[in-house]
């Protein structure tokens, strides 16, 4: 294992850090501190940020987690500002002219150099002046390995000043929690007793949240999520319509618009352009087969976590199963999971969807955590 890039500093002062070993940028007295909640997703990241000590939010952005390195030989003026690196939508919009690199795969860093460039971009969004101290809570998949955690810290070294890595499903629970309603009659605090299913691009994370920080036993991470569904759907398309020429990006679009789980829905006619001509493809079975695979993967993990709950808590837990992340947009996912639980004899289960703001719950939770973290809980990034 490499040298850890982090150290806890229990007696850290409340002012800007003076640690001489912080590297990357010159060590200087920061003029202000910015707190950020950073949902580092495989396909999309969400960043919320604001100055420390306030409830102001100066940044709220969803950014595709992709870096585009401009190809050599592109003539001046094609890329705005003749930039050499593009990020997010800019990179995707110029995919003809860039080499696209996805820094994250299955929830962990796959391309460290691209990840550092992406982090640098995130930093510049949080603090365009480049002068502030940046403290960020980063969402990571449940049960992320030590090595994967260390990879994130190494990539953040010299870009962010202090960091906290917190499992995404727990941050989802914090983000989903309506603080203003906590304590009101009829409001069930999701942090008290709930089970979150966070289906992202690279991983599906399941987590029981029962009033204390989830242990490893409370969390299960499955390396099967949106991207895996895309792959299955792409294979089906290739089988049904050889030489279709559809890009992975297009396949993802089709999935996001039409994916469903449960019994086969037919017909689902999808208009696509192949070889310059419009075609109408019937994809009912293909979409169902691809998305139902997700249910087969996450259901055993769901029942495992339910079985691990104490008899005192399990009935309430079953009433608070919440699906979030991009996978929550798959049509019927709540109903299908609830029906399977009911059919298997679980006591009055209720599976709910987190809602349209699913992209931001992890980042909201992360920013809440950043604002609540005590001084001694932040970790310095060191060489």
């Amino acid at each position, binding site marked *: 294992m490499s040298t850890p890039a982090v150290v806890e500093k229990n007696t850290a002062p409340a002012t800007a850090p003076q640690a001489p070993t912080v590297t990357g940028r010159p060590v200087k007295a920061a003029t202000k501190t910015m707190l950020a909640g950073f949902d580092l997703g495989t396909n999309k990241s969400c960043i919320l940020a604001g100055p420390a000590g306030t409830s102001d*939010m100066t940044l709220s952005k969803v950014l595709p987690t992709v870096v585009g390195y401009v190809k050599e030989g592109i003539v001046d003026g094609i890329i705005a500002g003749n930039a050499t690196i593009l990020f997010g939508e800019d990179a995707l919009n110029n995919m003809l002219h860039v080499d696209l690199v996805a820094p994250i795969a299955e929830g962990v860093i796959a391309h460290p150099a691209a990840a550092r460039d992406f982090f640098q971009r995130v930093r510049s969004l949080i603090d365009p002046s480049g002068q502030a101290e940046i403290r960020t809570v980063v969402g990571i998949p449940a049960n992320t390995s030590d090595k994967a955690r260390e990879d994130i810290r190494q990539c953040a070294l010299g870009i962010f000043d202090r960091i906290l890595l917190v499992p995404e499903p727990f941050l989802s629970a914090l983000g989903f929690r*309506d603080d203003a309603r*906590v304590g009101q009659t009829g409001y069930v605090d999701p*942090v*008290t007793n709930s089970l979150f299913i966070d289906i992202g691009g690279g991983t599906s994370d399941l987590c029981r949240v029962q009033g204390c920080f989830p242990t490893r036993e409370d969390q299960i991470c499955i390396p099967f999520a949106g991207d895996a569904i895309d792959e299955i759907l792409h294979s089906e398309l290739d089988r049904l319509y050889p030489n279709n020429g559809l890009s992975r990006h297009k396949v993802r679009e089709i999935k996001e618009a039409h994916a469903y789980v449960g019994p086969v829905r037919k017909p689902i006619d999808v208009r696509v352009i192949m070889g310059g001509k419009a075609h109408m493809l019937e994809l009912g079975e293909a979409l169902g087969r691809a998305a139902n695979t997700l249910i087969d993967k996450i259901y055993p993990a769901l029942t495992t976590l339910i079985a691990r709950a104490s008899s005192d808590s399990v009935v309430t837990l079953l009433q608070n199963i919440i699906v979030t992340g991009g996978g929550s947009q798959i049509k019927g996912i709540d109903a299908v999971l609830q029906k399977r639980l009911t059919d298997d004899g679980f006591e009055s289960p209720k599976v709910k969807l987190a809602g349209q*703001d699913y992209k931001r719950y992890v980042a909201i939770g992360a920013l809440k*955590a950043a604002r*609540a973290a005590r*001084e001694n809980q932040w970790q310095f990034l060191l060489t």
Partner: protein
Amino acid sequence: MSPITAEDEFLVVLSTVRATYGPASINETDLKEIVATEESRVADAAVIAELIASRMTALQTSTTASTPSAPSSAQAETNRPASTPAPFASSVSTSPFSIADLIDGMLAQEKRDVRQPAQR
């Protein structure tokens, strides 16, 4: 009968404009961009509301504070003996669970995991 939503109203207006000025009067790409922009604004507003809600609740609680013999959760948090006060916390949750305590639990768990790597 379900109430008319803003989306319903928008669709009615859109249909009227298209019926009056022709189907090409509103560019589909422009329309998508406008809808995306507005969706983003609504999402931002929701996030801001979410984040300031706890602060407003805390302010409300402090104005209706109980007697000194029954300190609020905010005071209890401030009096926490084991650690430095959180200078950057924008507010202290009035809920039974302190996020900082939950983070303590996470960090303690990480330390245990470091000490017992063989069990993982």
